[in-house]
């Protein structure tokens, strides 16, 4: 059965989503356990696959027994094996966290659909990660997008409908561009398989069709990852979504979109293309630095905790795109490490924000004065993950930025390396703002006492604290992670 794990990773969760619907129709309480079990099984399978890949090399699975280019294949190599393990770990953490948060935020009769869509979203993202066919990527992208549009609006708050609709419009433009790019690639080469495309494309690197395909795929996925000037959907969507959904889309979905972009830039097109033939890396590097600064500055200007973290995501996506722009071994190691690190720490921070909303009913910074007295564990977790966000050693955030800076030095981009440090300082600015309010803000000076709050339920605290500690442990034992990251970065650059 181990041979068939890649496809079971998608087929079983689809059936399980159906089971959630049927079981939920019978009794609503069945939904959550089925969802939890499925995602834990997926996580176990992902770990098994990752170990298999690190031992045996790339796994290729031909669906229907048809070899590409006729059929679709699933490809798991050291790069997406790593991403797969990361996203399923975070999905598992989120689903543990989701239970109480959903009970609070989602209407009882909507919970069945919520868990079905939650499951389908995770499945779609897993599909995007392991597919080796570029059109199949589009199909799974759409499964996850449609699930996301609805999940954002699933708390049925008026503003969330508007946020969701804006995301739907931009997301559909992005999907349209991606479809157009795929079409152009198909016209130029006649195949849809990624490995096949990588073989056939160099012959037609000079064609305008290929350049256009690249541009459209780049713009499309940039909208999906909320790369700086195309980020307009992100703050509203992250702020208005229910807490559990925010955690899932800010960690898992954002990372999978970044993965897809990396996959297309480095595997379908190669470094040779993006550096020599159609030199965009310098431009991406420039925009990435602008994103880092602008995202952080905008984050400092916010008055709402969730919105602040959302803008911080834009800044952090800049770091990952920075790695794409530098495109050498060290920087890519840093970028991949940051994919993991940012997922862990942003997941933790959004979990804290969700917990504060769960207890206090608000995430306005002005209402959170002295919250550390009533919710000490949450605020400690926030401080730890925030330290990682700033990049204080020995956290994972420090390690990833360290590798990014090393990579930038190696490429001779001194100025850009300096921008990374400025970004860290700005991150300190917005993280410190919350810390100051939570620990040193005195709520007695206000006439209006905040709602009496206490620490959240255990099922929400455990994943949050685990992620916070993970920020620290991953930084200390970074060599273990590098075992997986190094071959992945080498693979992206075209090595074995």
């Amino acid at each position, binding site marked *: 059965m181990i041979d068939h794990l890649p496809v079971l990773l998608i087929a079983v969760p689809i059936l399980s989503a159906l089971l959630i619907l049927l079981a939920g129709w019978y009794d609503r309480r069945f939904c959550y356990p089925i969802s939890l079990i499925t995602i834990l099984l997926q996580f176990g399978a992902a770990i098994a696959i990752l170990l298999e890949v690190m031992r045996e090399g790339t796994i290729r699975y031909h669906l229907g027994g048809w070899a590409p280019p006729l059929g679709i294949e699933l490809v798991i190599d050291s790069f997406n094996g790593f991403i797969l393990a990361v996203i399923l770990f975070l999905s598992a953490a989120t689903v543990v966290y989701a239970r109480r948060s959903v009970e609070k935020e989602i209407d009882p009769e909507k919970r069945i659909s919520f868990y079905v869509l939650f499951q389908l979203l995770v499945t779609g993202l897993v599909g995007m990660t392991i597919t080796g066919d570029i059109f199949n990527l589009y199909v799974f992208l759409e499964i996850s997008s*449609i699930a996301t*549009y609805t999940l954002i609006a699933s708390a*049925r708050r*008026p503003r969330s*409908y508007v946020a969701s*609709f804006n995301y739907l419009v931009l997301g559909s*433009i992005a999907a349209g561009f991606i479809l157009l790019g795929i079409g152009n690639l198909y016209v130029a080469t006649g195949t849809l398989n990624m490995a096949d495309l990588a073989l056939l494309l160099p012959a037609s690197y000079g064609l305008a069709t290929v350049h256009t395909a690249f541009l459209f795929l780049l713009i499309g996925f940039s909208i999906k990852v909320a790369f700086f000037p195309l980020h307009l959907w992100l703050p509203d969507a992250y702020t208005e979504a229910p807490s559990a959904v925010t955690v899932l889309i800010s960690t898992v979905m954002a990372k999978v979109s970044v993965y897809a972009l990396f996959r297309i830039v480095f595997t379908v097109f190669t470094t040779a293309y993006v550096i020599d033939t159609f030199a965009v890396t310098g431009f991406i590097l420039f925009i990435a630095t602008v994103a880092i600064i602008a995202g952080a500055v905008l984050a400092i200007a916010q008055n709402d905790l969730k919105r602040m973290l959302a803008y911080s995501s834009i800044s952090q996506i800049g770091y990952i795109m920075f790695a794409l722009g530098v495109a050498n071994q060290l920087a890519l190691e840093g970028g991949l490490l940051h994919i993991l690190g940012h997922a862990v720490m942003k997941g933790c921070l959004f979990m804290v924000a969700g917990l504060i909303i769960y207890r206090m009913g608000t995430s306005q910074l002005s209402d959170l004065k002295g919250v550390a007295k009533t919710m000490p564990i949450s605020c400690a977790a926030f401080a730890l993950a925030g330290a990682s966000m700033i990049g204080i050693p020995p956290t994972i955030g420090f390690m990833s930025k360290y590798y990014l800076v090393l990579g930038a030095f190696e490429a001779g981009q001194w100025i850009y390396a300096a921008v990374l440090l400025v970004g860290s300082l700005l991150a300190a600015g917005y993280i410190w703002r919350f810390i100051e309010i939570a620990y040193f803000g005195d709520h007695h000076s206000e006439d209006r006492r905040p709602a009496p709050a206490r620490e959240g339920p255990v099922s929400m605290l455990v994943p949050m604290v685990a992620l916070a500690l993970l920020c620290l442990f991953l930084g200390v034992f970074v060599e273990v992670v590098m075992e997986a990251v190094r071959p992945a970065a080498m693979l992206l650059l075209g090595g074995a």
Partner: protein
Amino acid sequence: MIEAFYELFLSRYNYWMAIILMLIGLYALIAKQNLVKKLIGLNIFQTAIFLFYISFAEVQGGTAPIYLPEGVDALYVNPLPHVLILTAIVVGVSVTAVGLSLIVRIYEEYGVIDEDDLMQVVRGR
């Protein structure tokens, strides 16, 4: 001159048609204030992309990709884009359905389907 014109425009008129439709759709999607009109723009945009796919599947003198009886010598058009577009159409329908239901909810909550008015109402609350 005429040859260049033929090369660029007449022999590739299908792409021009698709592109013009695409741009019309994109413009409507971005510039129109009415949310329903935005979705109509989205549909035009998507349909133009479908048209683009289907038109590059065409082969001069080809017939639909269904085998003719044995012995008949036939040239078939490229079947793959048809398959892809069948998938993409369904995706388009799904997105439209979700978008329309969001518009229904927005209209129920705020009583407007005009983007500028909507922004005013949302800020006002």
